[in-house]
C-alpha cells in the first residue's frame, strides 16, 4: 500500500510539472465540449430553396409564401426556366427545387387534386431526407388551408376527413440536439483523455529507460499498475465533473437522474479505458506506436458507439461488434441517467457488462506487463 502511494505521488508531480501536458488535459477538453456541442448538429437549417412558378396565380404565390415563412428555408430564388434551375442545382446554389406546373390553380379547383415537382440535392442523404420531410409538412399545411377554401366554393356534402398525428417528444421535449449530443461528447472527452494519457505513460518510461530501473526493484506488478492508473482515474473523474458543470451552465442540459449513480458508473468505466491504455502500452515500444493504436481504437469506438448514428440502424454483425465497445455503454448510460432519470436497476445491464470488461482488461494489462523478458 505504501509503495503504491509513492508511485501515485510521483505520477501527480510529473503530471502537474509537465507544462505541455496540463493544457491538453484541462483546456482542450473544454474547447472540444463547447465547439463540438455547438457544431455537431443534426438539424438541417438554412436550406437553399428555389422554385419555378409556371402558374403565376394567387394559389401558387400562397404556396411559395409558406416556404418563405418557414425558418428552415432561406434564399428564395425564382427561376424562369427548368434549365437555369438545373444549372443552379449543379453549382450547388440550390438544395431544394419546387416546380409549380401550369394551370396549377385551375386544375386544383376543377379536379380537387394536383401534383407538384420537388427536386432535392441528395448528396448528403441524411439532409435530403430531412428536407423532404420539411417540404411535405409545408405542402400538407398548405393543403389543409386550401381544402377549406375549396369546400366553400364547391361541394358542401363532402366533409373533410383528416387524421392528424400530434407527436409528443419524451425526454427531450423541444428536440434540442444539444441535449442529445452534450452527454455523448462528454463521454468522448473522458474516454480520449484517459486512454491517451494512460496509453502513453508507461511507454514513455520505456523510452526514457526508467521502466528498466523500476523492473529491477522488488515492486509488485499490481502495485505498479494501480499506482500508475490511479492518477489518471482521478483526472478522468475530474474531467467528468468539469464537463457536467459546463453542460449545466453553458448548455442547460437537464440532470434528471442520480448524480452519484453517474459517478459510480463512470468510476468503473474509466477502469476499462485505463486497462485498454495500459494493455496498448505494454505491447508498444514507442509513444508513436501507442498513439496510432489508441487512435485506431478510438475512431472505431466512437463511430460505432451510437453517438452519431443509431446502433439499431447498423447491420446485424456491426450491432454484435458494438457489444464490445465500452463507449457504447457509457453513451447509453449518460443519456439514460441524465435525460431519462434512469435508476440503478435500469442501467444494471450496462453496469455489469462494463464491470466485467474492466476486470478482463485490467487482468490482461497486469498479465501482459512483464518485469522479465
Amino acid at each position, binding site marked *: 500500500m*505504501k*509503495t503504491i*502511494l*509513492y*508511485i501515485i*505521488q*510521483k505520477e501527480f*508531480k*510529473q503530471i502537474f*510539472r*509537465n507544462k505541455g501536458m496540463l493544457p491538453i488535459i484541462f483546456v482542450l477538453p473544454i474547447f472540444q465540449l463547447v465547439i463540438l456541442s455547438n457544431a455537431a448538429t443534426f438539424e438541417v437549417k438554412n436550406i437553399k430553396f428555389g422554385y419555378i412558378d409556371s402558374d403565376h396565380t394567387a394559389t401558387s404565390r400562397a404556396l411559395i409564401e409558406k416556404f418563405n415563412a418557414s425558418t428552415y428555408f432561406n434564399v428564395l430564388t425564382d427561376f424562369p426556366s427548368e434549365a437555369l434551375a438545373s444549372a443552379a442545382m449543379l453549382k450547388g446554389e440550390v438544395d431544394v427545387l419546387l416546380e409549380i406546373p401550369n394551370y396549377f390553380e385551375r386544375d386544383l379547383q376543377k379536379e380537387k387534386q394536383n401534383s407538384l415537382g420537388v427536386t432535392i440535392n441528395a448528396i448528403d442523404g441524411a439532409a435530403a431526407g430531412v428536407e423532404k420531410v420539411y417540404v411535405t409538412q409545408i405542402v400538407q399545411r398548405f393543403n389543409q388551408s386550401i381544402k377549406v377554401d375549396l369546400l366553400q366554393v364547391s361541394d358542401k356534402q363532402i366533409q373533410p376527413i383528416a387524421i392528424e398525428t400530434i407527436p409528443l417528444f419524451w425526454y427531450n421535449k423541444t428536440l434540442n440536439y444539444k441535449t442529445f449530443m452534450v452527454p455523448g461528447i462528454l463521454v468522448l472527452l473522458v474516454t480520449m483523455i484517459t486512454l491517451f494519457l494512460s496509453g502513453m505513460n508507461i511507454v514513455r518510461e520505456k523510452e*526514457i*529507460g*526508467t521502466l*528498466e*530501473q*523500476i*523492473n*529491477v*526493484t*522488488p*515492486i509488485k506488478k499490481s502495485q505498479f499498475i494501480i499506482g500508475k492508473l490511479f492518477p489518471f482515474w482521478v483526472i478522468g473523474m475530474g474531467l467528468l465533473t468539469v464537463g457536467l458543470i459546463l453542460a449545466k451552465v453553458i448548455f442547460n442540459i437537464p440532470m434528471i437522474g442520480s448524480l452519484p449513480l453517474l459517478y459510480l458508473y463512470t468510476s468503473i468505466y474509466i477502469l476499462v479505458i485505463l486497462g485498454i491504455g495500459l494493455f496498448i502500452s505494454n505491447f508498444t515500444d514507442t509513444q508513436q506506436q501507442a498513439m496510432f493504436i489508441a487512435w485506431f481504437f478510438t475512431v472505431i469506438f466512437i463511430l460505432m458507439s451510437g453517438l452519431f448514428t443509431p446502433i439499431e440502424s447498423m447491420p446485424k454483425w456491426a450491432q454484435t461488434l458494438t457489444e464490445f465497445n465500452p463507449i457504447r455503454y457509457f453513451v447509453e448510460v449518460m443519456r439514460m441517467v441524465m435525460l431519462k432519470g434512469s435508476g440503478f436497476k435500469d442501467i444494471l445491464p450496462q453496469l455489469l457488462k462494463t464491470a466485467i470488461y474492466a476486470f478482463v482488461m485490467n487482468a490482461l494489462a497486469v498479465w501482459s506487463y512483464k*518485469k*522479465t*523478458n
Partner: protein
Amino acid sequence: MDNNTVIQVEGLTKMYGDFAAVDAITFDVKKGEIFGFLGANGAGKTTAMKMLIGISKPTAGKAQVAGFDVYKQAENIKKSIGYMSQKFALYDDLTVKENITFFGGIYGLSRKRIKEKIAILLEELGLEDVSDQLVGALPLGWKQKLSFSVSLIHDPKIVFLDEPTGGVDPITRRQFWEMIYKAAHQGTTVFVTTHYMDEAEYCDRVSIMVNGKIEALDTPKKLKAQFQVDNMNDVFLKLARG
C-alpha cells in the same frame, strides 16, 4: 554455494534465434569483491548482466544471485541487489530529493529512514545546494553519482553497475571509483562493466568477454603476467582482437 560466494554462474546462455549473445559463461563472485566485467561493445556484457538482475530470462544454464535462483526467485534477487543502467534512468522531471524519496519508497524504506538517507546522500555527494533542483538540469557526472547512490539506497548485498563512468570527466571518474571502493569496503559486492582499462586495474578480479564467451578471468596482476604485457589495455587488445 559457500557463504562467501554471492554470485554463482554455470553455463549461463542467452540465445536470440540462432545467435548466442551469451554463450555458456561460468564464473563466481565473492562477497565484498569488486568484479570487473569487461568486453568489447556487443560482446554480451549487458545481456549477461540483465539475466543476473532478473529482468531477462536465460535460455540455458544455472545462476544464483545472493542465494536466489534467477529462474524462480527473480523477485527475491531484486530485493538484494542494486542496479545502475548504462542509460541514465532516474526521473529528469523530479528533483534530487524526490528521486531519492521515490526509489527509497518503492524499496520499502520507512519515511524516517528515507529522510536520514537523503541527508547522508546529499552530504556525501555534495548535492545539498541543488537538492530541490530537477535532476534533468544537473551535469552528467552529478547525475551518475546520484544514480549510483540511489542504487545503494536499500543497502543491497550486490550492486550491478553497467558502464557507470561512460562520458564522465576524469575527476568525476576518480570520485566515482572512490565511492565504489567505499561501498565495497562496507561489504557490498560490486559487479561493474567498463571500457576504461585503467578502471579495470582497480578491480579485484576481472573477466573479459569476447563474442559471448568469457575468455579470461583472474586478478589484473595475474592476467598481465599470463599475457606477458604490462597493462590491462594490452591484455584486452590481445583478447578482443583474437
